């Protein structure tokens, strides 16, 4: 564990959908400036955990404290304003708005004057290599570009913690490498990152710590090498196609 200050503290988080216990008694922390990966087989409850953290779902029990604020009962936009931004696994650009407008929706929160918000948005787009697309409708972007737009928008809210939900899935090796570099750059600026990812090569190279979920429960946590060697983790993934892509 790092010695840095605690940014996110999750204690005993649970969520049930009818007969399905999607997340069970989940606890872990993210320190300031840290990169933590949340992995697990499909249906392990990763995306549900993100929805609970970002206020899109209300937990049945448990507590989430972010920068000293209890997030219970807070709406998604309030949580975002506290500095916790998320991306969506299924990307949700505003298709009819231009790319720069898409990012402005994010930057206007901290820069209420449209001219300022636009300048900020263009700076973020330039950083993510989307400057050339800024004035085109977002609906026309390629998959890789939409992934980067999703990242640009989250970044535009100037978060302290970024939740990235599979921002690399479906991308080729070059594009994945590019996102890995971007995530690293973002992190170097002091933004902590919690990522859900199936692309193991990316997880192993990025994460300082890995939390493994299975059936909604945390089954392992630790440094990447330790987690990869953990028999419980191997068992959880066994028979899963992800295993072939696992630890390199």
């Amino acid at each position, binding site marked *: 564990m790092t010695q840095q200050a605690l940014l996110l503290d999750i204690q005993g988080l649970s969520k049930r959908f009818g007969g399905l216990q999607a997340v069970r008694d989940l606890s872990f922390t993210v320190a300031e400036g840290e990169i933590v990966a949340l992995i697990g087989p499909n249906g392990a409850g990763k995306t549900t955990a993100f929805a609970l953290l*970002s*206020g*899109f779902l209300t937990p049945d029990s448990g507590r989430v404290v972010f920068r000293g604020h209890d997030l219970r009962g807070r*709406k*998604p*936009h*309030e949580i*975002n*304003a506290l500095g916790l*931004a*998320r991306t*969506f696994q299924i990307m*949700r*650009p*505003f*298709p*009819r*708005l231009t790319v720069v*407008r*898409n990012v*402005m*929706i*994010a930057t*206007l*929160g901290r820069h*209420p*004057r*449209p001219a300022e*918000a636009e300048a900020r948005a263009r700076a973020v787009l330039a950083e993510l290599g989307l400057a050339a697309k800024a004035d085109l409708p977002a609906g026309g972007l390629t998959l890789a570009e939409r992934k980067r737009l999703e990242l640009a*928008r*989250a970044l*535009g*809210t100037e978060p302290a913690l970024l939740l990235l939900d599979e921002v690399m899935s479906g991308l080729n090796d070059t594009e994945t490498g590019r996102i890995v570099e971007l995530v690293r750059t973002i992190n170097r600026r002091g933004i902590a990152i919690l990522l859900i990812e199936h692309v193991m090569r990316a997880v192993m190279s990025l994460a300082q710590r890995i939390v493994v979920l299975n059936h909604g429960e945390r089954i392992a946590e630790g440094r990447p090498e330790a987690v990869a060697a953990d028999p419980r983790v191997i068992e959880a993934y066994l028979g899963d196609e992800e295993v072939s892509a696992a630890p390199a």
Partner: protein
Amino acid sequence: MRLLVGLALLTLLVLPAFLSSYALTIFILILFYAFLGQAWNIVGGYTGQLSAGHAAFVGVGAYTAAMLSTEWGLTPWLGMFVGAVLAAALGAIIGYLGFRFGLRGFYFVLLTVAFAEVCRILVSNIDALGGALGLYITFTGNPRQFQFQDQRAYYYIALALMLFATGVVALIERRRFGIYLGAIREDEAACEALGVNTFKYKMLAMVVSSGLTGLGGAFYAFYLFSVQPNTVFGIPLSVEIIIRPIIGGAGTLFGPILGSFILTPLGELSRQYFGQSGLHGAHLIVYGVLLVSVVLFLPQGAYPYLRRLFKRA
């Protein structure tokens, strides 16, 4: 573009000098419906919250101004603002119920229609408000009582209302509020994730829209010298309000105006033409055909299409 707007404005300012009294009536209606369409545009077009009960706000504005004038002797010039405030309050109630409880799409349409209908039935049964017959305003021709011998005065008031609403929309469009509205229309959850308080901005849009619409109620009452529950609260008026911005281009600054210039003369002329042949209500078929054509061929409305044509040229 600026030149074009300036020329159009100049034309509208001098136009009444050249119009017959019948043509003047049509132009008054064009401007007034453009104003109502513009007010609706804020919540229905930009925000994408399909209110199909905006007649309720016209009704509240009309009854308020008329009652204050006939019972309390308050000039409609002030009464119209009281009407606007009450209409905005009704808009806030409808908006709160709709947005707090997450009524989207058809459910929001039904909620707004239901409120307008409840208003209509309530007012029809309150004797103090004239019941089903409504209120009649005695013509005095006194400008202080919002009454004019010269029809051209109504033309200029309707023009002023339209310009005011368009100015409000132009102002909103370029501020943070307006930029958020366009994104709320596209994807509310994504907005929330980016820190946008969607409830607050939808409420604001609803209140501004209903207040502006209520402002028009006084004009309606004092231009026609009467207010009847079936006309000012009825579904047909709500449809008239919605159909112009949709045909002209919902969520665009000039869409409602263009829509009114297309539809109002068409509606009036066909109403008269079919009416003379004993086919009352047949003008609605014209509306229907036009609406279907627009949805099929110009789903964004006429104004965005024209703008593209101009840009290409």
